[in-house]
């Protein structure tokens, strides 16, 4: 179904629609995340761990909820027929879904990531944790992209759930692996920020994964013959 040109105004309207319909969960997640960050200020290791867990839960949860609400539910609740009855092509729909999910997700993600990195730069904080925190934050962005992509391509609740499960597991496994890589573990608990080549390569690979996933989504979507 090749409507080759993308009408940006239509994409913008679709993004605003998804923002309007999901603004509650995003705006609600921000105070929860900021509250978690405040726990770090107590300076205790246990509250630091608690903060990390809550932040992960909030960020991954927001990404998963968004993907579900904007892709799976649209099909399940039969609102997709309404959207596709409008002058919208599959390209515009796919672009809008990807951009809506990422832009909306980026609001809490940027705020909470900046907050977490800011807290680590406070005097007396373990500054060496900053590269690892950045890597894990970007990992969560990759995870959310993966969930969104699974939702858009499969339009299946089961496959998206599998995506969420794999992503959550992946965060823990990769977090463990990254934390034990020599180039990261050596400086992790130090007082200085050390951007080693290992940390940089991981970060670049993560950042490249996002456009790769998005490109694959457009390719798969372009081969679909049925939209309803």
């Amino acid at each position: 179904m090749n409507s080759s040109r993308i009408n940006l105004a239509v994409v913008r309207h679709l993004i605003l629609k998804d923002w309007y319909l999901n603004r509650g969960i995003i705006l609600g997640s921000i105070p929860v995340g900021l509250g978690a960050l405040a726990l770090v200020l107590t300076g205790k290791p246990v509250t630091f761990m608690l903060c990390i867990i809550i932040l992960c839960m909030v960020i991954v949860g927001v990404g998963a909820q968004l993907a579900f609400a904007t892709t799976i539910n649209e099909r399940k609740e039969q609102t997709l027929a309404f959207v596709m009855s409008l002058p919208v092509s599959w390209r515009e729909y796919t672009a809008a879904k990807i951009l809506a999910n990422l832009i909306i997700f980026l609001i809490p993600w940027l705020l909470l990531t900046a907050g977490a990195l800011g807290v680590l730069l406070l005097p007396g904080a373990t500054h060496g944790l900053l590269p690892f925190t950045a890597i894990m934050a970007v990992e969560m962005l990759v995870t959310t992209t993966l969930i969104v992509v699974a939702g858009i391509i499969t339009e299946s609740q089961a496959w998206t759930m599998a995506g969420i499960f794999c992503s959550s597991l992946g965060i823990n496994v990769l977090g463990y692996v990254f934390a034990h890589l020599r180039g990261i573990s050596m400086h992790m608990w130090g007082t200085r920020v050390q951007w080693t080549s290992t940390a940089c390569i991981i970060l670049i690979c993560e950042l490249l994964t996002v456009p790769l996933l998005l490109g694959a989504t457009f390719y798969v979507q372009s081969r679909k013959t049925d939209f309803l």
Partner: protein
Amino acid sequence: MNNLSIQMEGVSKRYPHFFLDSISLELREGSVLGFIGANGAGKSTTIRILMGLVRQDAGSVQVLGHSMPAEQTAAKLDIGFVSEDMRLYGAATLRWHMSFVASMYPRWDQAYADTLLRRFDLKPEQKIKGLSHGQRVKAALLLALARQPRLLILDEPTTGLDPVARREVLGELMSVLTDEGRTIFFSSHNTLEVEQISDHIAFIDRGRLIALDEKEDLLDRWRRVRLMVPPNAAVPQLPGVVEVAGTERLPVLTTSQFDPAVVSLCQNRGVTVEAVDSMTLEEIFVANVQSRRELQPA
């Protein structure tokens, strides 16, 4: 008024358990086509192909001069679509839906939308999830009509409506018909509704288009002829007989090609024509489907 709003040529689509078989159909601008078929006959698949939402495996589709599905965006700017399985966003109000749809359609007519709000007794500030089924259908119809479409595609819009809501929806459709430039493609299995508003009729069964005609021609051609055959006479060969019921002496013939000359032909053969009954659209549809199914079993 000779422009074609819809032109389908040899359109096929295969699914694992269903085959839409070479549909060819033309609909002139300003016509109202009643598209009748049983559940699972292929109505919704045909409509999805028309809307560009499903790509046909073979054949060509032109809607308002646009090739589908490639030019679906341009075509959909002039199409109002309401489907029985289409839902609006439950958490949003009707007013939000109106402004969302208006943002996509340059020809959105707010004054007409306000008129429809009053006519349908809808409250714009009410969330969709708080509306009854009938109100939701009327809301969807409002959103489709206020965009001033040249082509209105309605896929069983009145299914599940109570008689009052159905009358309101049909009433609005009837008033829309006064715009001679607007084409309507109305799918339903309720033949009474289709008969009320359509000027052309198409029957679809098991993925095949089995009839496409002007309504009046169709209603004129189909007749049930009640005969009385004396012991020494035989029923003459009549054109288009699709069903013979009754007894040997009192047969009832259903014909799709009735001609008043049939009466004199019978009388010449010594057969008395007791009655020539006109048929309702539903009777014609059922007789047509049954005769096709006997000729071409699944």
